[in-house]
């Protein structure tokens, strides 16, 4: 199917009243939950997941994607108005965004973020339209060897790009892979790590673990320091960027978009690297680098554009290869599997309406974000100001109902609680859980592809070094690992990641 007829099909799918309504609902709900302090995209998606269960697959996916950008965008609002980054990739936004807000320029910072995000989202969507079919075509020629190497790259990048030490990241990846092994081994039918419990035969549900670690774990961590959790919210003034603002943010938005589009595709690299590098680039080429951190509009526009472009193109590896690049994409895959869809290169051939409908609705969702959120910013500011003591019981209820409703199982609720406590322990121990989440999805895939690759080669591991794609991918992974050990890169990484938690 060529791009034009694909887009036409997508437009037909996305513009039905049902799909448009759910896209709208997703964006609105996603923003509403995403602005709440402490609720990043993962917690937001897992909390809102039950709303998509009763829907047809395409509608559910469109709504989930809407929730995803909504929560992503809501995080920026909180970052600017409250100096509280909902997730790692908003940390950079707090630097200049909140500084602007303190100078009474909150409205203009929000506008810069919104306009930058919209432009970047549009370009990112176009990029998917062009790149995804190509990559999916290529992916069909990939064998288990190439897939295994891609998975290794994804896991290595996720380790390199989280805060904390590499060794800790490695441990979290291994732990995630082990958790992924719980259940029935697909090949032999042997029950592994089930402790004889029938509830564990199907394996640990990904959404249950993500909700526990990110949703409940966050509640537990916040309650421990409840008394210190008082924050002031900046007032929102005029939303219109001045002519000077426009002049200063055009370049950063263009460059940020470029960076985000490219980096978003890398498995594991995701949003964090793109927003951080866009910020670093602007600071480097700016004539006034001293203004950065004190309210430079470039420092809001560039990372927000990069962040949003990457959020779009992060869908590419997921949709074309079935490999999630970020923890959030891993959750989206988990949600798709709940719906009975296995993402991968075949999705484009077998379910073109689903693929193209999603792509078109991504652009619609971005447009909705722009026209919805600026006028509603007063409402979001009021939502942010709800005290945590009213909020967290509701978070508990929504996560518990959500997890229960996946397969009507009280066992999953207990399991989520266990992982909530574990998530709390991870936070206390300074171990970032994102690599674990990614490895939980990628681990079983890694085992399966390793098994098949070695079966074909009769146990000869050198196959991974004879296929060009596989060697190339493994080399990139190696370069990443080595580069982190170099002092120069290490310093940059620490500067960018230490504040992130």
């Amino acid at each position, binding site marked *: 199917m060529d791009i034009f007829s694909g887009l036409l099909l997508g437009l037909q799918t996305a513009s039905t009243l049902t799909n448009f309504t759910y896209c709208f609902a997703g964006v609105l709900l996603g923003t509403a939950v995403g602005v709440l302090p402490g609720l990043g995209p993962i917690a937001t998606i897992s909390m809102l997941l*039950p709303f998509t269960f009763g829907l047809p697959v395409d509608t559910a996916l469109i709504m989930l994607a809407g929730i995803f950008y909504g929560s992503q965008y809501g995080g920026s609002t909180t970052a600017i108005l409250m100096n509280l980054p909902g997730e790692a990739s908003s940390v950079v936004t707090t630097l200049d965004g909140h500084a602007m807000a303190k100078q009474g320029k909150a409205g203009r910072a929000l506008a810069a973020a919104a306009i930058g995000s919209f432009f970047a989202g549009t370009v990112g969507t176009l990029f998917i339209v062009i790149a995804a079919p190509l990559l999916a075509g290529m992916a069909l020629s990939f064998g288990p060897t190439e897939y295994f190497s891609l998975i290794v790259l994804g896991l290595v990048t996720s380790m390199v790009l989280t805060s904390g030490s590499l*060794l800790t990241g490695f441990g979290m990846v291994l732990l995630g892979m082990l958790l992924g092994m719980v259940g029935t081994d697909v090949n032999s039918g042997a029950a592994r790590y089930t402790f004889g419990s029938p509830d564990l035969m199907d394996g640990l549900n990904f959404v249950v673990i993500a909700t526990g670690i990110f949703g409940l774990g966050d509640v537990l961590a916040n309650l421990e320091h409840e008394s210190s959790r008082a924050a002031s919210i900046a007032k929102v003034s005029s939303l219109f960027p001045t002519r000077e603002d426009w002049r200063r943010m055009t370049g950063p938005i263009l460059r940020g978009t470029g960076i985000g589009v490219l980096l978003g595709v890398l498995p594991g690299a995701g949003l964090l690297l793109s927003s951080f590098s866009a910020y670093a680039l602007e600071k480097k080429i700016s004539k006034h680098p001293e203004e950065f951190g004190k309210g430079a509009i470039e420092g809001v526009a560039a990372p927000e554009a990069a962040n949003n472009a990457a959020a779009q193109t992060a869908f590419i590896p997921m949709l074309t290869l079935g490999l999630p690049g970020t923890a959030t994409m891993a959750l989206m895959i988990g949600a798709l599997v709940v719906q009975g869809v296995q993402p991968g290169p075949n999705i484009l051939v077998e379910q073109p309406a689903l693929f193209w409908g999603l792509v078109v609705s991504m652009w619609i969702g971005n447009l909705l974000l722009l026209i919805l959120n600026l006028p509603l910013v007063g409402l979001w500011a009021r939502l942010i100001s709800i005290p945590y003591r009213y909020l967290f019981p509701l978070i508990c209820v929504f996560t518990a109902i959500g997890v229960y409703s996946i397969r009507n199982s009280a066992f999953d609720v207990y399991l989520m609680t266990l992982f909530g406590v574990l998530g709390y322990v991870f936070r206390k121990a300074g171990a970032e859980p994102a690599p674990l989440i990614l490895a939980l999805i990628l681990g079983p895939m890694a085992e399966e592809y390793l098994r098949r690759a070695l079966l074909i080669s009769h*146990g000869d591991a050198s196959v991974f070094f004879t296929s060009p794609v596989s060697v190339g991918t493994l080399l990139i992974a190696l370069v990443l690992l080595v580069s982190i050990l170099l002092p120069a890169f290490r310093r940059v990484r620490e500067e960018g990641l230490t504040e992130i938690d």
Partner: protein
Amino acid sequence: MKLTQDVVQGGLFLAIGLVALLLGLDYPLGTPGRMGPGFFPIIISAMLCLTGIGILLRARLGTSEVIYMTRWLPLFIVSGAIIAFGFLLDKLGLPLAVLLLCIGAASASIRFQFDWKAVAGAAVFSLICGILFVTLLGLPIPLVGSWLQAMGAP
């Protein structure tokens, strides 16, 4: 030895890795060409053990932060309330279970006061949840649970 982040990380990884390794040894290993169900778990859990030992060795350098607990109570109250919710959901029905979870979890807050306002707020919220999840979204959770039905409720 002080309880530092490295000690907790390393201990956790080593403990889980060891258990997984011991259990994994029971599964047929197979050969690289024909991996059995035990092949991958053994590799991964052995690596997890080594990582745990590595982090424990690093802990001896004493560079990681010491962990302090400020409040234990929320951990128990909130997890207890959610476990109770899971247990009671089909026995009491969704609204009542939500009401209990709401008040139970809220009591973990230092600012919580058990008064009519808290109960009324939780009651309204649990009614909304019942309408939203059961009536509108059609989740198969009873509004009136089995215990209440046994007692002759409608």
